[in-house]
């Protein structure tokens, strides 16, 4: 009886997916505090985190439902993966799907911007007594080589809607990313205009001499020493100014990314990744299309298609795609129902995200929604599962703990399941 039952269960379900689900449940069943060994076999060493703030529509991008009342006006197009179709606004991406991993089965529960952004960017709902670090912060901490003068995490966000600073939470200021907000160059990275280079270094040398005598016999010298040592990184950081200047790229490179800020920021991200920055985040805002959803997505996805394709090609040509996980997330997706203003509202029950590069299994579409895109019918993942899977894909044990006071805090929630089928 049991054998027949299992065979019946398997009938008609793609084998890979089922196996993945079975493996997921095994991971979940393991003791929550026991370190699990679910990590990707060849781990990326860098991460590019693309954040589509406001909530990009899965219908117009990764999970089209043409011909359904929920589907909207856009067609689905074939991709270079047999049987896989995506929205027509991404013709360039469609020819690069073999380098992508798409998850169509996110179900994350919270559909209010701030709370959902906290949830997706930390893997947990916000709590008043513990500020969890944003995913990129944790990734940067784990992937940091501890060498060189470059920051471990650079976060680029210029438009006002993407402007949520990646919060180091309980990890604190030492793990705070370098935020590029007002310009594409880190703040306070240039020497004050009233000092020449000689004055600048003379002043710094004097300060260092004071520090040395103060630290000599002091309580708390370890802390103070670390503080003084950070001053030593200032000069190196200041030397990296040219790295932040995308105008140094050849015309051809600038042209293929296009002139939109998102394109320029992705080009900058590539420069930073190439220079060895472990984690870079690029945010593009104003996806929150409560009105005129299709006009919005024609504009935004078209730009996304061009920029993201250029980025994939560029990363590949430079060999960076082999060592970089690219992840594309929003706080949620958009409603199946098209509202009176031809908009789509917030929807967290069934939506999509995408990955590219190293860490995740390439050319895979994971999970499935129903015909109208209203429910997840296969491979459901919540925000914790997603975070755990991301950590696993870059070779970090999601159940590794940070000690927060007396409280051991795993990187991903204890209850999170790793979707092992996604791992490369």
């Amino acid at each position: 009886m049991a054998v027949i039952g299992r065979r019946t269960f398997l009938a008609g379900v793609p084998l890979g997916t089922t196996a993945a689900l079975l493996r997921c449940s095994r991971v979940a069943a393991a003791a929550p505090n026991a370190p699990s060994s679910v990590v990707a076999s060849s781990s990326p060493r860098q991460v590019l985190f693309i954040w589509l703030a406001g909530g990009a529509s899965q219908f117009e991008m990764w999970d089209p439902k043409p011909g359904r009342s929920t589907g909207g006006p856009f067609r689905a197009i074939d991709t270079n993966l047999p049987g896989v179709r995506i929205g027509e606004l991404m013709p360039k991406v469609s020819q690069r799907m073999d380098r992508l991993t798409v998850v169509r089965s996110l179900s994350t529960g919270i559909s209010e911007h701030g709370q959902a952004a906290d949830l997706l960017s930390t893997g947990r709902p916000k709590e008043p007594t513990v500020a969890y670090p944003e995913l990129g912060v944790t990734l940067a901490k784990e992937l940091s080589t501890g060498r060189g003068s470059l920051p471990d995490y650079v976060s680029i966000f210029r438009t006002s809607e993407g402007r949520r600073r990646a919060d180091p939470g309980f990890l604190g200021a030492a793990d705070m990313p370098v935020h590029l907000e007002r310009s594409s160059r880190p703040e306070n990275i240039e020497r004050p205009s009233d000092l020449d280079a000689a004055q600048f270094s003379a002043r710094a040398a004097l300060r260092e001499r004071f520090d040395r005598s103060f630290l000599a016999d002091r309580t708390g010298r370890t802390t103070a020493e670390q503080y003084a040592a950070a001053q030593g990184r200032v000069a190196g950081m200041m030397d990296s100014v040219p790295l932040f200047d995308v105008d140094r790229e050849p015309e051809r490179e600038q042209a293929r990314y296009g002139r939109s800020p998102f394109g320029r920021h992705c080009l900058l991200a590539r420069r930073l990744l190439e220079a060895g920055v472990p984690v870079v985040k690029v945010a593009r805002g104003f996806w929150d299309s409560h009105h005129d959803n299709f006009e919005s997505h024609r504009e935004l996805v078209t730009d996304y298609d061009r920029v993201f394709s250029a980025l994939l090609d560029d990363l590949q040509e430079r060999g960076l795609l082999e060592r970089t996980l690219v992840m594309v997330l929003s706080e949620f997706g958009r409603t199946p129902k098209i509202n009176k203003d031809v908009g789509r509202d917030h929807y967290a029950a069934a939506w999509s995200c995408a990955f590219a590069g190293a860490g995740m299994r390439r050319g895979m579409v994971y999970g499935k929604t129903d015909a109208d895109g209203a429910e997840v019918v296969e491979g459901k993942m919540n925000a914790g599962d997603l975070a755990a899977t991301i950590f696993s894909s870059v070779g970090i044990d999601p159940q590794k703990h940070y000690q927060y006071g007396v409280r051991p805090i795993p990187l991903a929630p204890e209850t999170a399941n790793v979707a092992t089928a996604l791992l490369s």
Partner: protein
Amino acid sequence: MAEATVMKPKTPEPKPTEPRWNLPASGTLYALAVDGATGCAYVGGSAGTIYACDLNAATPTLRPRMHDDAYVAALEVLRDGPQSGRLVAARYDGSLVWYDRHDGKRLRITTAHDGWIRDLCVVGDGRRLATVGHDMRVKVWEAADGKLVRSFVGHALETPQGYVSAIYAVAGSPDGRYVASADRVGEVRVWDITSGKEAARFRAAEFYTFDGEKRDRSIGGIRRLRFSPDGKRLALAGIGQITNVDGFVGPSRLEVWDWQTGKRAASLQDSHQAVLNDVLWSSDGRKLTAAGGGDGGGVLLVWDAAGKQPEQKLKFKGHAQRLARLDGGSLLLAAGFEGVQAWDERAWSMPASANATKMAS
């Protein structure tokens, strides 16, 4: 905020109004055409279905007549000659389709544009049709045989900031000589069908919002344009400067241009937060009736074409995409979200208290 450059007369809140009919349909209706000869209206939209409606019936209803998968962007009824009674539909799949309106049969199908067709109009006496589409071309067709007469190229594919643009609207002059087209960045071009040349060009920049500093989005656009009955002026409908991108929040806006001189004759903006998707001239060319919807809710505005403030400002449930009038009559139809609504325009000339009925439910 850029208050100084935008005229924002403070007008009273819109008065609630109840339509004479409310004919429900699923999804959003973008297309509406009325056959004055028969008193029949045709509508279509996101569901792909084209419905017919006998306006002379005691209780008019929408009856599905033709169906295709792609959205219906616009419909026109051909009136004169052997084509009389044929229905032409423009669709988002780029196809222009001639139907027999009696049996619903497809008579001809032409791939008119690469990408969506956004608008369709009859030019002059009805011998010709004009279309605009996502390929940013303006095309003129023989109504009788579907032959391409002209294909005008000029509207930029991208906005000045490099984002994809769109032509939303096309209109034909009453004498059949010109077609006018309008796009996302507020550019209007008038084309001479006879010579095949551009006859005029101007930019109504207030319809386009770009705020690179904070938002970096190319939004807004002229959503409809119509020639005045004497053919000298163009009325443009859309939305003024947008303050909230996500909600597409901005003031409802009309402009009237003397297209031959390239001068703006009137700038009509109301504080009601909505996009005006369509506008109609009165037969004497003195009044404009516009409708739309958005953050402030559905709105119907009646303006003196030279005035500053709307004479009527009516609120209704929904969001209107396209307007039509039954020829010679005073029945105003609006197709939009989940159906068609119809009003008797004569009710608005009565004292305010008479038409302050409860909101449509």
